[in-house]
C-alpha cells in the first residue's frame, strides 16, 4: 500500500492541472502523510481504548504521534489534546476557561463576571466564540491593529485587568498572512499574570512552534492547513491549566476531550508537522522569494493596486492585493476560468456580503477591501505559475476595469 501511494507522486502533476493559490483555505494531503496514515484505516484499525493487541497497536501509535509533536512544540505529552479541527481547539481553549466561570455563576445563581481579550483581525472561530461569550455576559475587548495589521501592544497592556480570564491573539492572519509578535504579547501577559492562547493554524507550517520561545499557555494547530487531514486539530495546553471539556464522554485525551480517537488523523497530523519542521527553513526561503517576486510583478505590471498587510511580518506564502475600481469576486471568477484558484479577501463571495473584517480593521476603505484577492502559495508553486497568473490577472483586471463606473475616477 505504501509503495502504491508513493507512486502517487504523480501527485504534483495531478495537482498541477490547476494552479492552486488557495493554500490558506486548505492544502492537499501530502502523499507521505497519507501513506503513513493508511494502515490505520484498514489493518491497524483498533480502538486505542480496547484492551487487546489490536487496541494496543493503535494506542502505541497515538502515543508515538503525541511524543513526536511534544518534541516539536517543546512540551510534555499530556499537554497535547487532539481535537476534530482548528475551530474546535479554539473553542476548547476559550470556552474551556469560560465554562469554569459559567459553572460557578449558575451554581450561585448570578450573572457572569470577567473579560476576554482578543484583537480585531482574528478568524471567525475566535470572533464568533467571543461573540457568544459576550451574549451570555462576559466582557469582550477587541484590541486594534495598525494599518499594517499588527496589534497595538500598548492597547493590549492597558486592556488587561484583574478580571481578565484569557488573552487570545492569533499567530498569523489567514487573510493577510500578517504575523503577530507573540513573544512580545506574551511578555505583557506574563507581567499581568494572564493566560495567553494563540490560534496558530496559519503559522504552523512556516513559523517557530516552540511554545516556550513563543511564551504561550495554549496553542491551536490544525491539519487541514499543513498538508494533512481535514477534521483534525490539536490544542497545546499547559499542564497547569485545567479546561472544562466541551465534549463529555469517555476518558480520552486526559479527560479533556471525549470520543474515540481519530487514529489515522492523529498519525497524519504528527507526520505533517514533522515534515514541515524538516522543510521549514528551506521552504520558507523559497516561498519568500516567490512571494516577493509575485508582489513586485503585481506592483510593476498592474497599476492602481495595493498590497494589504505588512510586507515583512507576513507568511512566506501570502499575497493579499487590492485592485482598485473592481470587485474581488469578479477577479476570482475570471482567474478560476483560467484554472487559477484564489480567494477574495472579502467574504462577499461566501455567505456574507460584508467586506473582509480583517482589511476593514486595518483601516482599509470599504471599496478597496471589496477589491482584494488573496494568493496563498504552496509546496508545488513555481515561478512559471506566478508568471502565468500575472498575465491572466493583468488581462482580467483590465477587462473588469473597462466595465467599472468607478475606474475612471480611481485612475486620477
Amino acid at each position, binding site marked *: 500500500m505504501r509503495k502504491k501511494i508513493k507512486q502517487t507522486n504523480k501527485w504534483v502533476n495531478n495537482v498541477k492541472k490547476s494552479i492552486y493559490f488557495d493554500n490558506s483555505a486548505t492544502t492537499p494531503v501530502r502523499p507521505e502523510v497519507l501513506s503513513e496514515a493508511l494502515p490505520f484505516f484498514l489493518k491497524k484499525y483498533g480502538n486505542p481504548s480496547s484492551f487487546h493487541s489490536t487496541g494496543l497497536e493503535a494506542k502505541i501509535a497515538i502515543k508515538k504521534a503525541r511524543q513526536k509533536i511534544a518534541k516539536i512544540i517543546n512540551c510534555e505529552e499530556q499537554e497535547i489534546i487532539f481535537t476534530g479541527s482548528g475551530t474546535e481547539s479554539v473553542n476548547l481553549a476559550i470556552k474551556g476557561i469560560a465554562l469554569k466561570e459559567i459553572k460557578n455563576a449558575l451554581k450561585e445563581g448570578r450573572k457572569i463576571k470577567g473579560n476576554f481579550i482578543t484583537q480585531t483581525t482574528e478568524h471567525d472561530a475566535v470572533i464568533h466564540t467571543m461573540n457568544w461569550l459576550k451574549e451570555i455576559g462576559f466582557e*469582550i475587548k477587541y484590541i486594534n491593529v495598525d494599518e499594517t495589521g499588527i496589534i497595538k501592544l500598548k492597547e493590549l497592556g492597558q486592556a488587561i485587568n484583574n478580571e481578565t480570564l484569557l488573552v487570545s491573539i492569533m499567530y498569523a492572519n489567514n487573510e493577510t498572512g500578517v504575523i503577530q509578535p507573540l513573544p512580545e504579547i506574551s511578555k505583557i501577559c506574563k507581567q499581568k499574570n494572564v493566560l495567553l492562547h494563540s490560534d496558530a493554524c496559519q503559522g504552523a507550517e512556516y513559523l517557530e512552534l516552540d511554545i516556550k520561545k513563543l511564551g504561550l499557555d495554549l496553542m491551536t494547530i490544525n491539519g487541514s492547513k499543513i498538508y494533512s487531514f481535514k477534521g483534525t486539530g490539536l490544542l497545546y495546553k499547559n499542564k497547569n491549566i485545567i479546561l472544562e471539556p466541551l465534549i463529555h464522554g469517555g476518558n480520552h485525551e486526559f479527560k479533556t476531550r471525549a470520543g474515540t480517537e481519530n487514529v489515522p488523523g492523529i498519525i497524519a497530523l504528527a507526520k505533517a508537522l514533522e515534515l514541515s519542521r524538516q522543510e521549514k527553513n528551506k521552504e520558507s526561503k523559497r516561498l519568500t522569494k516567490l512571494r516577493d517576486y509575485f508582489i513586485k510583478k503585481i506592483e510593476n505590471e498592474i497599476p492602481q493596486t495595493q498590497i494589504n498587510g505588512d510586507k515583512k511580518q507576513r507568511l512566506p506564502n501570502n499575497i493579499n492585493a487590492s485592485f482598485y475600481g473592481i470587485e474581488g469576486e469578479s477577479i476570482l471568477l475570471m482567474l478560476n476560468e483560467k484554472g487559477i484558484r484564489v480567494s477574495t479577501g472579502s467574504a462577499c463571495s461566501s455567505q456574507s456580503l460584508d467586506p473582509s473584517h480583517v482589511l476593514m480593521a486595518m483601516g482599509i*476603505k470599504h*471599496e478597496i477591501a471589496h477589491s482584494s484577492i488573496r494568493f496563498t502559495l504552496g509546496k508545488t508553486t513555481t515561478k512559471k505559475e506566478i508568471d502565468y497568473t500575472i498575465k491572466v490577472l493583468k488581462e482580467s483586471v483590465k477587462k473588469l476595469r473597462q*466595465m*467599472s*463606473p*468607478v475606474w*475612471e475616477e480611481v485612475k486620477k
Partner: protein
Amino acid sequence: MKMEGQDWFYSKKVKEHFLKPKNILKNEKEIKKFNGYGKVGNMKCGDIMEMWIKVENEKIIDCKWKTFGCASAIASTSMLSVMLTEKKGIKLTDALKITGNDIMKRLGGLPQIKIHCSVLGDQALREAIKNYEKNNSTIPKIDKKIKLNKPKLETKLKK
C-alpha cells in the same frame, strides 16, 4: 451537475454573461447617443450600477451599462440589457414590468445571497426611464462622486 446555480455557484447562463457581458459601455464618447441615464449604488456589496438608454417613440432601442459589482450583478445587468434590446427594442411600459425575478429566470437562477444583485440593473433602468421622462433630451453629467456606506465593524465584532 444539477446543483450548479441552484444554491451556490452560478448557472451556465450566468457564467456566459459574466465572461462575455453584453452592451457594456466601452467608450465614454458613446454617452451622447443616449437620452436616459440612471445610477444606483450599494457599496454594502460593493455594487454600483450605471445605465444609459436610448428611447424613441416610447421604446427603448438601445442600452449600455457599467458596474462595479460581482459576477451576478454583471450577469444580471447583461441579461437585462439583452431583454431590453433583443426584439428591436421594448416599450417603456413593458420595460417597467421587468422584475429581478424575470431576469433571474432567464439566467437559470442565482444563489440566495445574490438575489439582490438581479435587482440592481432593474433599479438603474427605472432611474434611467425616470430621467428620460423628466428631462427628455439632456443627459446629466455623470456624477463621479460615489457615496460609500461607512464600514460597520460592529456587525461582526460585538464589542
